[in-house]
């Protein structure tokens, strides 16, 4: 007995192989990310510079900001495929109204309109309990139509690009860091705190993990699901501010295809599509991996499209490792 206790402390000090395996399981995506950065650093001198890193952060800020809201929806057990169309809508609206009624009212109206669209999603999925994939697929098409009807098919832009303070969101820097990066990371921190430290966060996890149990423990599931769609509408609005301000104009289909890239970032981070698990930190890392793949491959001289091939492999490998570690074996035994 005594000899056991004396022998214990040194053993606990040193990590054993099973500890390493455990860590790899829990933080697999983080470790992969670090290995990835190191590998790219060797192949390109410019890659590991502060300038380059801050460029990547700026580039991923739009997809990243949207991914934060979509992560909340996914943790709640649903999907949101309408964010791409919603981004087009919000960007077109804010840019178009900017010259007509001024930046601040334009932003206010766009915020309300975008939240209203999120509320429609939320009512259909939360209160009417319709399948979120199909609902948001239908909304993808409908919002696209609404955007085109609003703009009459014309592209919109801001005439006096130098004078407006609207440029702040997409073009300015604060303390040496780009404003889009501040928005992306700031929202990530706030959301992470809300998800892990508040009753609301716990409810979202509960509803996504086991809707029935959540209902029986007195959580008003419909309201929680409804609210997650407001959150994703809000983050899409923030992304539209960055995009509209950076480009100072907008095409009608500017957000086309964003929904699936956003989802790729969320999945890559390790948030399960089944709901009930996930975190903002994971999503930030997932989105950064997408960004650094693109950046690293371009610096190494590959074509722009090569990143899509690598993304394909990385997404499947990342989720496979996650699934395999839970299963305890690499391949399924299904015949």
């Amino acid at each position: 007995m005594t000899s056991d206790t004396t022998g214990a402390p040194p053993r606990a000090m040193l990590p054993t192989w099973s500890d390493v395996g455990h860590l790899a399981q829990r933080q697999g995506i983080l470790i992969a990310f670090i290995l990835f950065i190191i590998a790219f650093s060797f192949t390109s001198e410019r890659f590991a510079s502060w300038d380059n890193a801050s460029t990547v952060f700026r580039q991923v800020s739009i997809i990243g900001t949207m991914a934060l809201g979509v992560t909340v929806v996914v943790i709640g057990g649903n999907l949101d495929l309408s964010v791409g169309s919603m981004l087009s809508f919000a960007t077109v609206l804010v840019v178009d109204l900017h010259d007509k009624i001024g930046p601040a009212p334009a932003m206010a109206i766009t915020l309300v309109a975008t939240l209203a669209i999120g509320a429609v999603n939320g009512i259909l999925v939360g209160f009417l309990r319709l399948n979120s994939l199909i609902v948001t697929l239908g909304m993808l098409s409908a919002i696209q139509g609404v955007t085109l009807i609003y703009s009459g098919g014309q592209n919109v832009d801001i005439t006096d690009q130098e004078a407006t303070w609207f440029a702040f969101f997409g073009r300015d820097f604060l303390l040496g860091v780009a404003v889009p990066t501040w928005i992306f990371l700031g929202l990530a921190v706030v959301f992470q705190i809300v998800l892990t430290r508040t009753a609301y966060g716990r409810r979202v996890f509960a509803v996504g993990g086991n809707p029935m149990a959540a209902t029986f423990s007195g959580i008003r599931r419909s309201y929680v699901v409804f609210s997650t769609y407001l959150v994703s509408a809000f983050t899409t609005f923030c992304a539209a501010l960055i995009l509209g301000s950076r480009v100072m104009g907008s095409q009608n289909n500017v957000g086309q295809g964003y929904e699936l890239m956003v989802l790729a970032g969320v999945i890559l981070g390790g948030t399960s599509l089944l709901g009930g698990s996930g975190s903002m930190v994971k999503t930030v890392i997932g989105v950064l991996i997408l960004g650094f793949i693109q950046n690293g491959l371009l610096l190494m001289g590959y074509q722009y499209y090569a990143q899509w091939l690598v993304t394909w492999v990385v997404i499947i490998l990342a989720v496979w490792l996650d699934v395999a570690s839970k299963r305890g074996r690499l391949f399924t035994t299904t015949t």
Partner: protein
Amino acid sequence: MTKTLQSLTHLSRLTVVPPIWLFTLACALFFTVTTDNFAEIGNLTNILQQTSTIGLIALGMTVVMINGNIDLSVGAVVALAASLAVGLQSDIGTLPAVAVGLGSGIALGFLNGMIVWKTGVDAFIVTLGAMIGVRGLVFVYTQEQSFFAMDFAYSDFGMSQTLGLPTLAWVFLGFTVVMHWVMTSTVHGRNAYAVGGNREAALNAGIRVGRHMVVNFMIVGFFAALAGITLSTQMGASTPNLGREYELWTITAVVLGGTKLTGGAGSILGTLGGVLAIGILRNGMNLMQVPAFYVLVILGAILIAVLFIDRQVNRAGSEEVEA
């Protein structure tokens, strides 16, 4: 409201026809009355030709979705097969190029299926990855170029008529009959419903679920590639952006047709109804000169409405706890 809807389902259970056909026929009737040209033979065959692209993909997607899986990579496969079939024809001849195009779709379906089977990763994620990657492959292969068919027989085929119908309409209807037969009268079809309905039970009953799913992914890959090729024969060209968002339109058609996302239920006849419903709506609203922008809104609203009605009609008692 709900009661009338429920009696509607009883009605539809008596007949073998999937309920979407009521909607499809209602649309057809509506446009026959409201427009002058809708019911002309020329327009109706036109609709068949227009819908054949999404229709062919939807045939394969139905099987995969009855299986409880999904394939988001079909749009990218459309572009890949079209680019290969058009791009290679001056080098190796038209028919071999078409064969390579079809082969690429089957091969990618095999790859998707094997990954889903062996790794156990959800088909949604696997094919989402493939959707991004295959599109990359298309751009790498084409170098962002559009290809034009040098063989005029190739582009003539897409515009040709056989026995009074566009040839492509025959292709679509022919494969619809084949797939209907496969799903209703073969072991493979029965297994598809069994696997989608209850995977564990299917495994215990001795169905080789993994292999079965791989075959289905190859089927949808084949149909996506075929749709890409028929589309490029219509245009006499291929572009690297071909087929964008086709996965979304296809899923819309299949879901309208009554196939459940959770698997185990659905039919080729229903999918045909769903495909035609979209085709008729687009065509009819076009004839009524509804601006194309409104059509997007209406189609989205109809998809959600059908989902809602379907839920109201099929809700089995109070299995869900209301909160």
